């Protein structure tokens, strides 16, 4: 049993210093405020500034493993991740999930056509998986792609697609085969500018626009744009999701539990610093335990992924753990602020420029999007524990 991450040798200090200077020089000043969560710029100008930034990094020779066919030096990769995260500006535009799919299931031509422009910020991608009725239960997808000559014709609807309003390409799952369940699904590269694609940005309760609905009205996709074989979409998606998960692991930023301690020091409860109150201490202590366990659950999942032992319950379990802890922690953060918690971003009274208020409102995205936690519990019970499936109704 181990969770060892080897230390980075001092010989890499120069690499880090050069990179850091490069980032400082090219980092754009955006009108957009990046908040917590999977957030998307609301102005085209910011998207263009980000493209320029990502292009500069790429053209200077810094390429992340996730976009490259051969892995780079592992220490350089870790430094690259660390410094890009520390810059506080997005360095991956759109949803990069398709990269893993292309690497494992794509043709050489697909890889050479799509990976480099993705790495360079020239192509922004969105993920077209979730549907209104199926959540992240991908086996019950209803979007269909019927073969017609050299094309497939796509009809259906997706939801919860981040970045779709700025995307050049979409990573689509649709039903192509005349069988129920996972065996009927195939994966596609979809040009988002194809006729019949209708992207409708949604304004969320946060007041921001981070998700889109995407409608397909007889959208033609060339058959060569299929990733993997017909009916293999379920495996393709699984592999890319697994690759994504193995990228998990303390992706920088201040530990939210430490942030809570900070809030508890700076705000009073009953005339004393809240951090001296036994109830506050117990609550934060409990969060600290669950937050650490979240990390260990991630380590276990990475281990199982490596050994090919991932079960249907693992990802839903991790999603519930994270999203419910997150919700409770942001609620606690607001409570610590007392009446001050009513001030939001832009108000001079606000705490940390309203990050907690925004995080509170956004927290429900984690418990609803990509398959609500209720659907996740069904999956755990039915696939993980083997309990009887919920009967489908007659609609």
């Amino acid at each position, binding site marked *: 049993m181990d969770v060892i991450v080897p230390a980075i040798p001092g010989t890499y200090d120069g690499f880090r210093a050069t990179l850091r200077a490069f980032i400082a020089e090219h980092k754009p000043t955006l009108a957009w405020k990046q908040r917590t969560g999977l957030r998307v710029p609301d102005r085209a100008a910011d998207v263009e500034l980000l493209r320029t930034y990502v292009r500069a990094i790429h053209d200077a020779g810094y390429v992340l493993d996730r976009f490259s066919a051969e892995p780079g030096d592992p220490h350089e990769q870790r430094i690259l991740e660390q410094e890009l995260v520390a810059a506080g500006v997005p360095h991956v535009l759109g949803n990069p999930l398709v990269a893993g799919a292309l690497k494992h299931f794509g043709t050489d031509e697909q890889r050479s056509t799509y990976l480099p422009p993705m790495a360079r910020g020239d192509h922004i991608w969105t993920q077209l998986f979730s549907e209104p009725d199926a959540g992240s239960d991908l086996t019950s997808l209803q979007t269909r792609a019927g073969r017609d000559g050299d094309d497939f014709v796509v009809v259906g609807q997706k939801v919860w697609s981040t970045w779709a309003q700025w995307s050049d390409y979409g990573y689509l799952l649709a039903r192509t085969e005349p069988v129920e369940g996972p065996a009927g699904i195939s994966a596609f590269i979809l040009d988002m500018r194809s006729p019949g694609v209708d992207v409708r940005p949604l304004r969320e*309760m946060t007041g921001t626009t981070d998700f889109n609905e995407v409608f397909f009205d007889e959208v033609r996709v060339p058959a060569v744009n299929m990733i993997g074989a017909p009916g293999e979409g379920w495996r393709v998606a699984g592999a890319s999701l697994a690759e994504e998960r193995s990228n998990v692991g303390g992706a920088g930023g201040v530990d939210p539990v430490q942030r809570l301690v900070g809030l508890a020091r700076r705000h*009073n409860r009953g005339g004393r610093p809240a951090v001296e109150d036994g109830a506050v201490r117990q609550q934060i202590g409990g969060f600290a335990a669950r937050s650490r366990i979240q990390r260990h659950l991630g380590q276990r999942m990475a281990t199982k992924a490596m050994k090919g032992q991932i079960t249907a319950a693992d990802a839903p379990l991790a999603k519930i753990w994270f999203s419910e802890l997150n919700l409770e922690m942001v609620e606690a953060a607001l409570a610590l602020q007392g*009446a001050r*918690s009513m001030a939001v*971003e832009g108000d001079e*009274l606000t705490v940390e420029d309203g990050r907690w208020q925004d995080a*509170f*409102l956004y927290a*429900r995205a984690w418990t609803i999007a990509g398959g609500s936690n209720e659907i996740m519990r069904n999956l755990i019970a039915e696939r993980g524990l083997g309990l009887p499936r919920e009967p489908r109704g007659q*609609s």
Partner: protein
Amino acid sequence: MDFGFGEDQELLRSTTRRFLTEHQSLADVRRSMEEPDLFDPVVWRQGADLGWTAMLVPAEHEGGSVTGQPLVDLVVLAEELGRELNPGPFVPCNVSADAIARFGTEVQAKEHLPRLARGETTSAWCLSGDGSPEPSAVEVRASRSGDGWRLEGVARYVHAAADATLLLVTATGPESGVVNLLVPRPSAGLTDRVLTGLDLTRRFAEVHFDGVTVPGAAELAGGWAVVERCLSVATVLQAAESVGAADHLFTATVEYAKKRVQFGRTIGSFQAIKHRLANLLIELEGMRAAAHYAALALGDGLPDADEAVATAGAYVDDAFAHLAGEAIQLHGGIGFTWEHDVHLFVRRAKVNQVLYGDGAWHRERLIRLVEAATAPSGGA
């Protein structure tokens, strides 16, 4: 024993509901919430004609209640206003009217109560610097200035301050303890700044006092006892607003669960959803019982009034916030959108949680009362 509303109160309820549906429904509030003026003085004055601010005002000052239990009458109104997330100064106006009627001089009563009852005056309560009901948190300082008072400092998180023409200001006095002063708005040296806030259906302000002077006759005698009383009334009325809002949201959520189809079934047919809705009904009925009893006990001066108010403060708004969060979850994606109303309830609940003492504050108050009632030998 009759722990329910009487016929007159039910009539008050239906009249109020009809009025709000026609003149200031949640849809109307929604339309105005992104505009500078959320408060509609015309509607407010019409509401005043229906008794919104008259119940705690004695008849000789143009007030009057529906029954002999004005606070219970107000609960009916508060529930109805809460249902539509009404932005108006219902809580502070009634708190002020009660304070003036109870602690004010005859001159103060004559000057302010008829205008409050008619809805011509609206008021706000400047409690403290951080919104908490602690003497140490009061940040307006009152010093003697000739025969009158001079005010310096700031009060924050004041509901409806920018719409008010009368401020009830709690300030630290020159001796120990606080003084409560009735300050007209506008006054020289008095400025306010409306907050960019989480609750989109109410406006709160930061109120600055830079050498504001008022005559000695502006003082409401009673010191911290005035604050205690205001806090109790505010706690009860806000709890009732929360009950109304929660009831509305819960009903809408149940209706949604009966209609929304997923996996070929209405989601209300899924047992896990059913049990969560059952849990929410349990909480809602608990909220209701707590708010109603608190109004009864405080209004009638029952021996357990303090415990009853603390119980409402300890339970109601936290339960409302929980219910509102569950309502989003049960609505799923649609509940997460800006266009759907559910987030307005979430925001209202979140702010109610921290006004007039949060749940933790009231729970602490409640255990102190229980401690005082528990024999030192220790309960058993």
